[in-house]
């Protein structure tokens, strides 16, 4: 029976244009909407699979403002059965602050799954800091985890090939997307998610904060594109270009 805690972060959907807030401290989500990172979607899927395979439970956690219940509900809709909401402005929490707050809840869980990096702040460290807070081993950046006889078997791509780790529980594992296909919520899943009572908590301590001075947008690159034509009529110009670049296989 493995009790899994999976940590997700509500972030601005940055797949289209990124706009900053006036104070330059955050990405403005008023127009783009919010989501969680793909790594975390895969971590949720793995948490649900491990809970099902071991007869345990998958709990989802976030530290975020009141609206972050939206992301908790989406994890509940795909199979998490409990949710913890540390209500706070995540922008004012640095990675060490977030790790400390997760640790308060995580002590009761056998396995904590996180994303490898958050889609907005991209600090690449909350999971590792959490492991030190808890005094537990951490495997970082894997695409798959299963639990066999109280051991987390985690694997993913390394610089020299496909790597496997075997760590006794309790442990922390951070996930990269690509190993599992997150499931889509079903209508009954969504209905069930609405009924789950979310445990609300306040942070255990005041945050030291991120060491952020401000956010900036990179300058737009000047366009030097040469338009070769429109539609099918452009084909001869394209093939001329292929010949000029010497890329045609003969």
């Amino acid at each position: 029976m493995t009790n899994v805690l999976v940590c997700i972060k509500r972030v601005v959907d940055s797949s289209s244009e990124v706009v900053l807030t006036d104070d330059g401290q955050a990405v403005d989500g008023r127009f783009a909407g919010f989501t969680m990172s793909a790594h975390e979607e895969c971590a949720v899927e793995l948490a649900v699979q491990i809970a099902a395979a071991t007869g345990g439970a998958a709990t989802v956690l976030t530290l975020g403002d009141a609206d972050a219940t939206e992301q908790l509900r989406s994890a509940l809709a795909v199979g998490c059965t409990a949710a913890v909401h540390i209500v706070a402005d995540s922008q004012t929490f640095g990675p060490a602050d977030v790790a400390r707050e997760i640790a308060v809840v995580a002590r009761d869980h056998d396995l904590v799954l996180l994303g490898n990096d958050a889609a907005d702040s991209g600090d690449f460290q909350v999971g590792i800091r959490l492991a030190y807070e808890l005094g537990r081993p951490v495997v970082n950046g894997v695409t798959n985890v299963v639990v066999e006889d109280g051991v987390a078997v985690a694997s993913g791509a390394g610089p020299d090939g496909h790597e496997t780790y075997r760590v006794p529980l309790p442990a922390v594992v951070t996930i990269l997307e690509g190993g599992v296909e997150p499931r889509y919520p079903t209508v009954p899943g969504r209905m069930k998610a609405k009924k789950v009572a979310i445990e609300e908590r306040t942070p255990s301590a005041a945050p030291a904060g991120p060491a952020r001075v401000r956010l900036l947008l990179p300058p737009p690159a000047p366009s030097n594109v040469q338009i070769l034509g429109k539609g099918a009529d452009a084909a001869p110009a394209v093939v001329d270009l292929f010949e000029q670049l010497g890329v045609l296989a003969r």
Partner: protein
Amino acid sequence: MILVLVETSPSREAVEVSREAVTFARSLSDSGGGVPVDAVVVGAASEALVATLASYGVRQVHVLEGDAFAAFSGAAWASGILAVRASAGSVVVMAAGTPRGNEVMAHVAARAGVAMAANVLSFSGLSPFVVTRQVVGGSALEEMRLSDRPAVFTVAGHAVEASPAAAPGPGEVVTHTPDVDAADLVARVVSSEEPEPDLSGTLTSARVVVGAGRGAGSSDGFADLLELTELVGGSLGVSRVVTSLGWRPHHEQVGQTGSRISPDLYIPCGISGAIQHWAGCSTAKNILAINTDPDAPMVTKATYAVIGDLHEVVPAINEEIRRRRSAG
């Protein structure tokens, strides 16, 4: 002293991004009055590796040896690096922004109780030490203050160009076999298998990559694109939309969470050019975008473009190649 973790390839050479990190460290050293730059290497360092690092201006090459370093463990590497730091008194500990580099630096920072900045592009001042780093997958930048010592950070890939120093450093080898706590070896690689040779390998080394995005329309929309791929002797690369919809396998994905390609020619068809996709193809020498939207970021960033429906343009290109072949 500035301490740089240098990662090695299977043939035990310093990987390019690590040489970039050493180059970055040198510019930091220059503006800091010439503090020496040292490298730390895990596992035996060949003479060739030491010679390369010396040519990059490195003073000492610290080599971490012993059973604790036989297989990768982020905690063990960090413990070894902190042992080197203690003996040499480094004020900066840094690495390349690779998966390993970010992981090991996060361990170093957590153990030392200091901040860590991932994917730094540049620095703008020494006191206070302020770095600019990539956030939101590269769509935004963050200025961050690193007031702790050691200052711990990683350098984003291609933030600077790897270049040897004007005058080589001594490159003196110092071997360390620090004691590593058993707890730091619990999460350790227990097996590593050779990568599948034919998956993303050909994609990352292909001279020509044909790209396909949502514009392909469905899993049945790839026939012409695959024919073009064959006619140019290239590989197919796709956007994340294509893999998440299950139209093509994940190993074909190009981008921040896929492969990074640098072909002579990339031909993205029906790909908008979101920053996370761009992160994987920005180093292509030439880009020919095929897109219905003349304002798509991929079109404005490309070298060449054809405006139109890929389902009309691509078959016409294939036809033209076949026509010229039979004529020639």
